[in-house]
């Protein structure tokens, strides 16, 4: 596996696996991250995968840059350049109520792409998405890629308050807001399930490198699953 390493902080180094956003790279970083986590375990205080990189934080009192780098190298050198296809069993299913009542930008996206609302929903939910990165807020997963015809730039003026569970599109990425926050993504629906819950053993539902599919559900099912419509 090819990569480059750079110092990014007093106790961090960042491994770079490529220089453009690419699903194949996301898969490669997932494999690297799992291998490093299992080989180096507690030596890594934090391990932060993103689109093209993996940040490693180590403990200065028990470790040093050069010995850690040597062990990172021996771990990654054993890995193949092309990761094996991820098995379909790992796909996370997320139910979504796609509707203008909870997705105020759904009709605008349909008009923009000369599709019906129903077609937008079909195209968005037929796609298999990869988690490129988690960031912005706890449990906020950047997913890609949205079919080209649904590509939509961020809103010129972000909304002051986006309700928790809102599903949005920005350019060719899609994401769910785990908690209410300001936000500029185009909202198309809402999930009743919780993307982040600090009380769970795994607080974040998603992690980088996972695959996600959205399943369109009815208003009744949304409400039955605990969904809220204001």
């Amino acid at each position: 596996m090819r990569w480059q390493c750079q110092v990014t902080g007093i106790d961090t180094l960042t491994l770079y696996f490529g220089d453009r956003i690419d699903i194949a790279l996301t898969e490669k970083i997932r494999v690297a991250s799992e291998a490093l986590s299992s080989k180096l375990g507690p030596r890594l205080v934090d391990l932060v995968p993103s689109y093209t990189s993996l940040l490693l934080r180590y403990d200065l009192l028990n470790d040093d840059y050069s010995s850690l780098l040597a062990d990172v190298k021996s771990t990654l050198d054993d890995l193949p350049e092309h990761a094996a296809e991820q098995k379909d069993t790992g796909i996370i299913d997320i139910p979504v109520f796609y509707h203008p009542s909870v997705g105020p930008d759904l009709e605008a996206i349909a008009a923009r792409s000369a599709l019906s609302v129903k077609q937008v929903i079909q195209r968005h939910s037929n796609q298999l998405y990869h988690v490129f990165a988690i960031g912005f807020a706890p449990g906020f997963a950047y997913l890609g890629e949205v079919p080209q015809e649904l590509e939509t730039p961020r809103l010129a003026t972000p909304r002051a308050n986006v309700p928790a569970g809102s599903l949005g599109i920005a350019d060719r990425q899609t994401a769910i807001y785990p908690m209410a926050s300001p936000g500029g993504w185009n909202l198309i629906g809402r999930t009743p399930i919780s993307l982040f819950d600090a009380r769970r053993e795994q607080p974040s539902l998603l992690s980088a490198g996972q695959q996600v599919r959205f399943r369109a559900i009815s208003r009744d099912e949304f409400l039955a699953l605990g969904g809220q419509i204001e």
Partner: protein
Amino acid sequence: MSSHAGFHVTKPGFFTLLQDAGRRGVMHMGLTSGGAMDRHAWAWANRLLGNRYGTPALEITFGGAAFTSGLNTQIVVTGAEVQLTVNGKPKPLWTTIRVNAGDSVSLSAPRAGVRSYFAVRGGFIVNTDLGNSCATVVREGTGGLHSNGQPLGQGDLIPCSDATPPAANRKIPSQWIPDYHEPLTLNVISCAQVDRFSEAVFETFFDNIYTLSPQADRMGARLTGPALEVADRTLISEGTSLGAIQVPADGQPIILLNDRQTIGGYPKLGAVTPRSLDALAQRPPGTQLRFREIPLPEAQQEERQFLAFFRTAGSV
């Protein structure tokens, strides 16, 4: 009976948070690190009481807070130069103080410095489920007394144990107490993306004074000064490091702090060392700052000394 023992918040002050050494192992979920902004003052408060490194204490920003003790114990207040009183009588900072049930502890607004640390013998007892830390993160709504990221409010009871044996009375030698009025030069290490900036940009940054903007919080310290030009602005978002100096499009640098977002897409000029961040945490908006580059091994050596002194000592 220790179940209801603790300190009652009678006046929460401007911004008072439970903080410790910060979270570990949770950044991949988008959870920030948090933790005491001035580890030096925070770690001394605990050490004087014989508490281990990592013990939760209160971080009181801009003073103006008051508490009533529900038990007989000892406390230490370090950091910002506030007037500390117990039942109206002045008490020294950086020194163990005995308090009894019913005593009222008050901190004035600071004469120098920004953040006070209030530690109690045995530590405050609070949920540490996220990243083995109690860190209160308002932006995320995580951590703290009620696990909802809220600052302490009037009427809160911060539990602590009255079972811990008394510590010896201690204070730290005055020469170890920092002068927060002193002009500050922050140490910077060179990092990835230095090639995004020209040599002239580094000269501008290291030869000029930058002013700490009022828009400085626990996420980041915004600076104002001569604009820094970024040759190549496109950067794919990547994990962020403590102290990283981000340069956004307007050329005004931002130092990423404890509550920073976990990934970010601005090029970084370098990273301020954690020991310099401790000092920065005691400087109010408007403070003039200089920067100097030091080699990574020197920066790491300084940080290792700090951690070895406070983390491996345990009880003193």
